[in-house]
Every structure is written in C-alpha cells, then in structure tokens.
C-alpha cells in the first residue's frame, strides 16, 4: 500500500503531498524534509529505492522534480516505479508538456488527477486514456 506521495522540487518545496495514512501536521513536515534529504543527493546511477524508517521510498526524478512514493517494505518496487512514470505521462498529456509551473498554478487539478489514479493507497486505473477522458468529463461539470 502507498503510504504517501510527494512531489518536490530540488529545493525541497513540496508541490503535492498526499497522505493515505493519518499523520500530525508537524510529522508531515518532518517526513517531507527527510524524504527530500534522502533523495536529492543520490547519484542518478543509484537505485530508485531508499529505505525510509520502516518503509521504503520509490522515487524518480523528472527534470527538477522528484516524485516519491512511500510504500511497504514487501511491495514490488519495480511496479511502483512504473506507476510513477505512468502518472507523469498522464500529467504530461493533460497539461500538454507539463512543467513545474503547471503543477503550482493548477495544484487542485493535479490532486484531482491523482485521485482518479490512486485511491486509498492503491492503484485505481491503469489506462492513461481512461483517466484523461474522465478528467474531461469532470471539467465539464465545473
């Protein structure tokens, strides 16, 4: 199960944080700080997995943005790595050539996309097309 998802830039600014477990506000800030510290200095040749407390973080870097998923220690790392990429592809498609600024100004839409992709810490939909279509329908409701 995914415990939380973080999207941070190289400076450590959180662009998206989604927690599927209840955490105190102060604890969340600590987690975000620690995860950023863990991933930011790793060599690109290194594995995309780091142990984090009793869990592990699967992360992937896209330009200046780090996408990090914290998952259970027995979970399939490679699969989550693949799901990060799928999420990025969805974002890319939705914003057509996504960049950090898109995520900043449209953060609520990013959350909406994420909620169509992952729910309760589990994968909800694996088709990029289905999610994009669904987003179109939701936007019509506005």
């Amino acid at each position: 199960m995914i415990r939380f998802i973080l999207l941070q830039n190289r400076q450590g600014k959180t662009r998206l944080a989604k927690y599927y477990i209840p955490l105190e506000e102060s604890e969340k800030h600590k987690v975000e700080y620690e995860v950023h510290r863990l991933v930011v200095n790793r060599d690109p040749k290194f594995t995309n997995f780091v142990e984090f407390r009793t869990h592990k973080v699967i992360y992937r870097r896209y330009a200046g943005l780090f996408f990090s998923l914290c998952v259970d220690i027995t979970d399939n790392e490679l699969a989550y790595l693949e799901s990060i990429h799928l999420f990025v592809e969805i974002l890319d498609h939705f914003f057509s050539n996504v960049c950090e600024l898109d995520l900043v100004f449209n953060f609520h839409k990013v959350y909406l996309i994420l909620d169509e992709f992952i729910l309760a810490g589990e994968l909800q939909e694996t088709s990029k097309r289905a999610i994009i279509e669904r987003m179109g329908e939701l936007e019509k409701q506005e």
Partner: protein
Amino acid sequence: MNPFSSGTRLRDMIRAIRACKTAAEERGVVRKECAAIRASISENDPDYRHRNLAKLMFIHMLGYPTHFGQMECLKLIASPGFPEKRIGYLGLMLLLDERQEVLMLVTNSIKQDLNHTNQYIVGLALCALGNICSAEMARDLAPEIERLLQFRDPNIRKKAALCSIRIIKKVPDLAENFVNPVAALLKEKHHGVLITGVQLCADLCKVSAEALEYFRKTCTDGLVKVLKDVANSPYAPEYDISGISDPFLHIRLLKVLRVLGQGDADASDSMNDILAQVATKTESNKNAGNAILYECVETIMNIEDNGGLRVLAINILGRFLSNRDNNIRYVALNMLMRAIAVDSKAVQRHRATILECVKDSDPSIRKRALDLVCLLVNETNVKPLTKELTEHLEVSDPEFKGDLTAKICSIVEKFSHEKIWYIDQMLKVLSEAGNYVKDEVWHALIVVITNASDLHGYAVRSLYRAVQKARDQETLFRVAVWCIGEYGEMLVNNFGRLDIEEPTTVTESDAVDVLETSIKIHSCDLTSQAMCLIALLKLSSRFPACSQRINNIIGQYKGSFVLELQQRATEFNSIIERHQNMRSSLAERMPVLDEATFSGRRAGSVPAAVSTSQGVSVNLPNGSAKLSTAHVADLLDLSLDDAPAPSSSGGEFLQDLLGVNLMPVSLQPGHIYCVLYESFRMLFLNYNSDPHIFSFSPYYWYLLTNANQAQKRGSDVLLDLLSIGTPPAQSSPSTPQVLSSNTDNRSPLDILDRLSTPSAPSAQVSSTGGNSSMLDLLNGLPSSPPTSEGNGPAHSSVTAFESSSLRLTFNISKQPGNPQMTLIDGSFTNKSQDVFTDFIFQAAVPKFLQLQLDPASGNSLPANGNGSITQKLRITNSQHGKKSLVMRIRISYKVNNKDVLEEGQVSNFPRDL
C-alpha cells in the same frame, strides 16, 4: 461587501507569493491573504467560499497553519453544486484527517452524496471516504459502499472497491459483507474494476480466514484464467506499457494468486502452468517486464513446492543479479533473502556476486547485500567471508562503516568457536573502524576477554600493540585502557605467552606511558579520560614502583574543569597517598562478567542480574528493591573493611535513602542509576568531612560501568551521570516531560493567579491522609526512621492529590547544602478495581519555581493499591524563604481503554521549601 473579502483570485495570489523575494515578504503576503479569508469566513459569504478554500489549500501546502478553514470544507461539501463540492472534498482530504472530530459532522453529507443522482458527485464522496475514512464512518457507511459495488458505471465500481479496502482495514468485522460482491467483480472485463477487485480480494483474504477459504475454492481457477487472458492478450494500446499489456494487472493477479496458493497444494497446482508461462515468456529487457518477473518469482517462492518452478525462479534471480541496472540488482538481492529459506544452496552459488554488491557505491544496494551476506554465513565460510568484509572496511564509505562493523561483529560473535579468533577479529575491526562501532560491541569484547582467563595476557599485549598503531580509534583505546588497568602486569611479565605471539618487552613505565600520553591527547573524550584514571589507579597498585609517578599524573586532574575528573582525581589521589592499606583491595581485578547475562540483556528483554563471583554484585533493572539495598550494603561493608566506619548510621542512612526511593516495586534501569547516583552524592555531600567515604567512588564507578556494560543504552545514562552539571535524567532515554507554566496557552500571570487561589475544585487536598501513608511507607523500611537531625535531609510526606480512584503521595526531602532544591518522590496508588494503563503525570509550576520530572517507574498502575508508580520531581525555588511551593498537576490514564483525565492543584506543601 467588506472591501477585504473581495480578495484576489487564486492565480493572482499564487503569483504574488511566487514574486516574494524573501521569506519575510512571503509571510507578509500570506498573512494578508489569511486575514482576508478570515474576514470573508466570518461574513459567511458563500460566493467566495470555494475560492477561499482553494487559496487556503495552497497556503497549507506552503506550511502555514490553516485550521480555521476546516469548517468551510464542511459548508462547501454541503452546498449543492459540483465545483463547490469538489473543492470542499479536496480540502477535507488535505486539511483534515480521520482523527479530527470535525469529521463526525461530515458523515451525513457524505452519505447523502453517496446517494446522489450525479455520479460524479458520488465519485467525489467515494474518493474522500477512501482516503480519510475512520472506523466510525466505516461502520456507518459500509452498506452504501456495498451497494455501489454494483453500480452501473465502472468508475464508481472501482472507487467503491478501493473504498471497501479502507473499510475492512478499519473494521475487519465487516469483511464478510463484501465477499459476495467481490466475487462478482473478479469476473469483470474492465481493467480498472478488475484491478481494484483483485486488490480488494487480496485484502479480504488477509483479514478473514473464511474469505480466504471461500475465494480459494471458488475463484482460483477464474483468476488463473484472467491472468492467462491478460498474458496472452494481443496488443492493446490503451493498456500497453513497453510492449506488455497492463503490467499492473499482471502484478496484482500474481499477488492474489500467491495469497490463494500459500499453504494449499491444490490451489498451487492449478496455477503452476500459468506461472511457468509468465516466468519464461515475459520480456525482460524493460522495467515493466522485470516487475512482472519479480512478482512471479515471489509467488513461486511462496506457493506450495514445485521443484521445477523454483529452479526457474532462482535462475531468474541469478539473471537479475548480473543485470547492469541497479534497480534490478537491488530487487534480486531483496528476493534472494527470501529465497534463502527455500533453497539456501542455490543462493550460496551467487555468493561471490553478492559480496561484490557489498562494495557497490549505492548505499541501498550495499545494505541489502550486507544483510544477505550475513544470512549466507555458516560454519564453513565464516572465516573467508569475515576476512573479505574486514578488508573492505578499509575502503568503505564512512557512513557505511557503522553498519558494516555491526554486522561483522555479529557474524564473528555468532560463529566464533575459538575465543582467540574472536579477539583477533575484533581487534582488526576496532583498529580499522573503532570510531564507528556501537557501544555494545566493545562492551561485548570486554566481556569475552574477562571470560577467557587463559587469554588475558594475549589480549592485553595485542591491544597494547594495536593501540600504538591506531591511537585515534576511540573504542579500541577504551578496551585497551580497560585491559591495561586490569591485566597490566601481564603486559610486563609476558604471562601466558602463546607460541604465535611475537615477543615484546614492555616495562612498567611503558604501560603507564600509554595511559599518560593518551589521557592528555585533545581527542580523548570524557569517558575515556575517566577510564584512564581508573586504570592508572589500578596500575598504581599493580606496579608499586610507578606509584609516585602515577600519583603525579592523577594529581594534575585535581584541577580539571570537569567535575567528574576532578573528583575522581581527588579521590584516587587520597587513596594512593593515605590509604595504602586498602588500595590493593580497591584496585582488585574486576570479577568475571557473566557472559550469558550479558548476551541475554543485549538480546533485549531478559531482565537478569549481573551476578559476579566476588561479592560485588549488582541487581539491576527490575530487580526488587530489597536486593539492591542489600547490595549497596555489601558495598559499604567491602569498602569500610579496614577503615573505621564514618558513623554507625551511615549504612542505615543509605539504606533509608534507598529504601525510601526504592519502595515502588518496579524500577526502570535509568531510575536505579539516578537513585544510586543521588544516594552516593548525598552521602558524599553529607560526610565530606570524612575522607574515608571517598573510597565509595571507585566502587560506584564500577557498579555503574558494570551496569553500563550490561545495559544497551547504558552509555547514555552513564554519560549523563558523568556530567554532573546536568541533572542525570535529563537526557535519559525516556525524556521527562517538563511542563512549563505557559505551555497551555495561558499567560503565566493568569496561571499564577489561578495557582494562588486556595484550592481548585477538582483537587482534594488533605493533609490528614498524609501521615498514614507516610507510616505505610516507613513500615516497609528495614531500619530506623530516616530523619537525621541537623544536616541530614528532612523528610515529610503529603497527600498531594486524592480522588475516588487515585491517590498521589509526595515524599518530600531537602538536599543538604542546597536549600532551594526540594526533592520529591511522587507515589501513585490506584484505589479502584481496574488497572490503569498509559499512565502519564504532568505538572506545572509558576515561574519562580523550576521543575524537573524524572521518568516514571512505569506506565501501568495495578488495581486495588497493589503496587504503585513512582516518579521523582526536583523543584528549585528561586524565591526560597519568600514564597512556598505550589503546583498544578494533570494525570491522564486509560481505564478499560477509556481515557481519563484528572487535574488538580497542590498547595499543601510544608512551608519553607
């Protein structure tokens, strides 16, 4: 309309915040926005509500407090339109979580939305529920979710399935309601519904054995067929990821098959074919394919045995291990760890490759590989493996050395048949990376050395040589110092020389030289210096010829700024100069440390005594109070052997002191230290006119070293004890809670006012009960009443707090020579029929007082007054003589899992404290 509430658009606010050049500027913008939003909230203006909340969410992401917006979420959720609801639910998930009570209020709105005619609104409600549902909500809304599992739109069905996972995790009892609907989901064609259904099925199997049995019987074949269809499906652009159709679904299916196959031969049998197909046919040149293979291997490892498949799986791992991609190697190592239980021989074949991975530059890989190597070690390969690892120690990254040394040490410890090999290996590790080893490692080495009586000489000589070469390794040095102190004479007389040793000539003054030069080195830390002093004292007795020189070295520390060193130096100095007759018995060799006890303690839980053969025995954690007192009495006897007793009441006094302190049944380790420490300190302060009492110190030091070695976290405590300036418990493992008077958001003045009012309604203050409880306490004491007139500490006792279920008694004593300080032993007694758990005591005092709370002796309080919790408090009254003590207390605990909070005020302290 208020001019402030018209506000800016979300986009403009984000721009304004981004345009800020400094953090202060940003805070200013945020403050202004927050003020505008608050104003708008208080006007209850529905038009801007969702824009305001969107802004608040952004502000929240930046890390500013936004709790004032929580109610706005609820209002938005209750409003009719989709855009408002969307922001409302988003805010609900971001700003609140399941622990907030506000959530109770939203249950009804969610329920209505789950029954809404607009399926997009149903989707929003499901999403929120899946992410923040609490147990209560789960119970209330489970029927709605069950119904939605059969909703016509697949988007709702898949959301409902994931929501159900959250519900059964929160309330496992509800699992049975979901079994039938899930069986239907597993037959779906829609991938989204299928993948969530499969996940729900796996989670149901986890929480309910009946569900597992049911799915195993009725769905195994169906799921195998689904996997077959997915694996053989033609190219489907919608789900294609690098040439594989929906790897995520593959993985979910493999996972659920693993759950079903585990421990059931029939089910395992029915999935063999498809597993073999997946394992052989899946493309392994892309991450997606490898993810599937990895999952497949795990499933093969976990289902019932099929030799052929397992060979296939191990081969896949072998291929992974030699892959160039670090990620793939990492998962291979991960999986090999689990494969070891299944087929350790096959894993052993990859030993060389795994050992290479220990040397990888990526810490994640190294760590995995090291763990795996430790599992591979056995009797036959331990020596070469240890050699490899120790050699790698030289070149490894500093941050890896801590882990590496710990593992080497545990391997060596586990597989050493000859103590000499163990000592040799440890010396190598300590010489190479002595600054990285954990305390228990060098403690263990000392224990082993004391137990190997035929190797004492060998050990001390090897250490002597090693420390000459690698002085900068702190722990190596400590072990060496310890051994030189204990076995110094063997260094000189070459006692018990082994054939393999190279002959060395060390003179008595060489041995002293090592200590002398080391103690003066700047890098020598306090513990090492203190150990040096002890070793020097010991050598002064072993090498009478060097006695004068040693005395001079020790003498230099009489002026040390570090109180502990100064005190030690003074004490040892007087032992050497004035108490020749008792020096040799004081400096006797340490009794053999009990290996079994030590390793048991290190393993974590076994509370046993460190018993030693020569009488100085210490009963430590959880030992009964009586025993400890007896041991301290022993100690007194020993050290007062040939010196006139300072006063006949000395021993009793100490016993009293300990008796009073140790009344409660169970004490935490840290506590014993504090108590012993305090007791000795008080003795010292009390009788400092009498030099004989100084002779305690080496013994209490040993007592503590002993204890330290026996206790995992001991070193912290020891260090605490050594730093006299800070009170012993301040940084001990469980940090005491010091509640300063303004932590509860009231101004200090206010607190003072309230404190000075005679009695708070909830506090029952009676001093009549105090006497009897004091008597109770005294009855337990072995000797005469503790009060000693004049300079002795004055004791008194008050019942500080009494309610229908709980009594708190304060035993108050003063520290002689420090009139401002009051020592209080709080003792809690449970008068009710039920056990109290999670017991926490907090106290607050006005500003002119300083309060220190030591850790409590425990956190559960037996019923009917059978036992008590004790907690020491220390109060320093800066207005001593002018104002008397006063304190507010708060006690929280759980009775039958219900939280109880009691509060009160203690104002019946004796005057002049």
